[in-house]
């Protein structure tokens, strides 16, 4: 029995593609899950925001891999090397399905790997699953660092 926390979910998305950001936003809206979504255009902006004092840390961070300035991998490494961010679930949100990327992000500490779907309804489905998944962890206290799930 999953008891849902009534407080909204803090979600962050870092993606350099405007269309993808819009899709994401629309999907979250249609899911009707209470959430606070913050979007970033690239890795540098993301890290600046995270490192700033008094920022509200997200529950889940969706990280694109191919970004200018700072790539998703670099952000991932930075975040995971900082104990302050260890509560954050990181979902890699990428177009690539190469084993190399999946392996690398897994080793660097990502929790979920999502291949960007090509269908809006699929996107909604995926996001719903991810959010629900994270709830389970939130409540059951499993170690996020060691869990890896690929969609």
């Amino acid at each position, binding site marked *: 029995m999953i008891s849902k926390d009534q407080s909204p979910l803090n979600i962050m998305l870092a993606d350099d593609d405007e*269309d993808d950001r819009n*899709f994401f936003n*629309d999907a979250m809206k249609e899911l009707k899950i209470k959430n606070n979504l913050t979007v970033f255009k690239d890795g540098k902006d993301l890290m600046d925001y995270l490192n700033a004092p008094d920022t509200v840390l997200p529950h889940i961070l969706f990280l694109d891999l*191919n970004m200018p300035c700072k790539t998703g991998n670099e952000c991932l490494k930075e975040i995971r090397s900082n104990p302050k961010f260890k509560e954050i679930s990181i979902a890699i949100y990428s*177009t*690539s*399905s*190469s084993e190399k990327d999946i392996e690398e992000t897994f080793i660097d500490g990502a929790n979920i790997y999502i291949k*960007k*779907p*090509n*269908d*809006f*309804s*699929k*996107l909604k489905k995926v996001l719903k699953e991810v959010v629900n998944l994270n709830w389970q962890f939130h409540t059951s206290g499993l170690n996020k660092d060691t869990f890896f799930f690929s969609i």
Partner: protein
Amino acid sequence: MKLKDYLTPTLVYRTALGVSFVLVVSVALVFHIQMNSLNNSVGLISDSNKKQFELEKLISSITLKENSLRNYIITKDTTYLKSDSLVEQNIYKSLSEIKDLVQKTADPSDIAGLENLIKQRFQLFEDTFKISNSENVDMNLLKSKLMESSQVTAAIRKQIYTIRDKEVSALKIHNINHRYDVETSTITAFSLTIIVLVVLLFSLNKVNYDFRKLKKLNKELNFANQISDNAEKVAGISHWKINMVTGKYFFSDNFYRIFGLEPHAFEEKVENFIAFIHPEDVGECVKAHEESLKSKTPTSLTYRIVRHDGEIRYINSIGDFTHNSNGELVKIGVSYDITEQQNSKFILEEKNKNLIAINAELESFNQIVSHDLQEPLRKIQMFISRLEGGEIDNVSETGKDYFSKIKMSANRMQNLMMDLVDYSRTIKENKVFGIIDLKTILDNVLQELAINIEETNAKVIVGKLPEVNAIPFQIQQLFVNLLANSLKYTKEGISPIIKVNARKITSEEIINDTIITENKYHKIVVSDNGIGFKQEFSEKIFALFKRLETEASYTGTGLGLAICKKVVENHNGFIKAKGVPNKGATFTIYLPK
């Protein structure tokens, strides 16, 4: 046979030599004895003749003395007495001669008797002379004396004739013996000559035979040397010898040719050879050489030489120690020109580098396809799905149709790109083989195709499958593609039934000149009950981008089976297809054990 081993040619010839030597010597000895005997018989004959002669002389002397005495008695002429003493001397001489001769042969008593008679006769000569010389010649006494004298003379004559007759008969025997001796010695001499001749002929023959054999062997040896030299020339090989005892070096003819010189162009000294070695290699070479000579260990070196015209050649030199026919320690070795091979090696290395570079470029191309091309495509698909989510209701029927076609094309493009990526993965360089359980692979496959299986209500029956030595992701791709095909190409309204089984190879099959046997290959069969295909296309379907069914209802990129074939080829295996239109298709995979 032991006897045959003993009868070596040397032994035979030595025995023959000994035997013939003994034979010649013994025959010569026999001959010598015979010659002696012959000499003896000749002596005997001459003695006998001499005796007879002396006997005759004796008689005639006595008769002569008788005559002279008679004449004196008749004439009283003293001139007849002059030769008296001489005659007497002769008589005694003959007698002594006969006596000598007698000692060698006949009856001495005969001679003694004769001597007596002669003495008697001489006495009578004296008496008669005295009587005839006295003043008063007593005629009766004279007559009786003369009578006595003639009697004695007759007796002498008789005796002499007896002796002579004995001699004659002895002589006959001597003659017979002599003839016999002559005959036998001739035979012996003749046979000796023949034996010597025969032995001589045999030895000459043997010498001639041996000489010819030696000449032939020598010719063959020369010929063999020539062939060897030619072979060296053709193959670019040479050989050398270092006599550790005498310190002498020997280089074969082709050794010089490798240096671009005529045979024996320089003296066979190691310094002359070292002078040709490339300055960068000479230090190491000399060191290795000297060490090897000290420790008597074999060497294998590769180094460069610089010819007089500046050309650089690569030489590979291998040497080892052994003993020659005199028991001296020698180092013998082979040096050969590997310049061509080295150059080929360099060219190959260059090509390899190029290939690696090309591979890297292909890799980046792959990256582009898997990332950058899929991006805009995904966007198209996303926006279409957004439209379908709402906006599409504002569009006309034709518009909706168009959108649906756009969507299909986009999907098709995506499938094509994904399949291309899969295909490029199968030709990638780093293929890691491992022992994998096909059952596990099939489980993964079923999981990957779970949605499709559910949608088509398909039944997949997987039998007992072996463990194979293969590249896991490629084998998985293979079965995914085959099963996806079976799930795709189904008969209308009929749920697909797919069977995956391992089969035993009962009879020998031959594919592409390779014999497939049970102990060398696995045989796995994937069969379905779908639309099948015409058997005449069984090879074509594996071609890249080749599709049989171009109907829109059957989506396909034409890459699936091409990928299957590539995977199977990567494993040195085979894949064969069998189809019956409207009944189903069977794909048989052979993988080496």
